[in-house]
């Protein structure tokens, strides 16, 4: 069972990413979206990489770019259409907002 996690908030100011991390399992996919893009530079992302493969961490491309956030090469930048596809490639969705 893979869950799609949409993280919309910054871990620098709220617990959403931490709580997501608490329920994350190895096949899950994590999407950084809206202010969740600030998490690209948060230390918690290292802990998350120990639970899921870095291939399973993705960021909405224009959301990161709008916020001036540098996206490391190993993190995939996706579009809204990609996000729609992922919604049906996983079994359920949790929105962390």
């Amino acid at each position, binding site marked *: *069972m893979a*869950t799609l996690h949409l993280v919309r908030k910054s871990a620098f100011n709220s*617990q959403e990413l931490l*709580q997501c991390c*608490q*329920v*994350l*399992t190895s096949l899950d996919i994590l999407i950084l979206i809206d202010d969740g893009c600030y998490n690209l530079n948060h230390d918690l992302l290292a802990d998350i990489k120990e639970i899921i493969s870095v291939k399973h961490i993705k960021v909405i491309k224009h959301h990161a770019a709008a916020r001036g956030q540098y996206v490391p090469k190993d993190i995939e930048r996706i579009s809204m259409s990609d996000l729609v596809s992922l919604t049906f490639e996983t*079994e*359920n*969705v*949790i*929105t*962390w*907002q």
Partner: protein
Amino acid sequence: MANKVLAILNSKAPYSSTFGKDSLDIALIFGSYEQGVSLFFQGEGVFQLIPNQDGQQLSMKDYLKTFSAFEFYDIEDIYVCLESLQERKLSNAFHIEKVNILPAKEFAAKLKQHDCILRF
């Protein structure tokens, strides 16, 4: 056709926002339609379960009292995240009965069994 089973993940403290009440309303509707619904409490959401609360002192109608009606609505799967309790130095005393305390890993496993997960 099997009915979908809903999980509601409660993440907000009870009084300053309407999230707890808005989440409760959904749980009760699903219960009254005889649709399976499980309740999960994590983070600040665990404050919805602690004892000795009294929303009336805040001039509110205290929706937490309605939690005692869960059994009537066949809402029996209630889970709270152990780590969230520990972070807040809370004991296992709750204002309703039959709350299951689960370590994050088991909490996650239960949560992910549901077809639909809403977070409030």
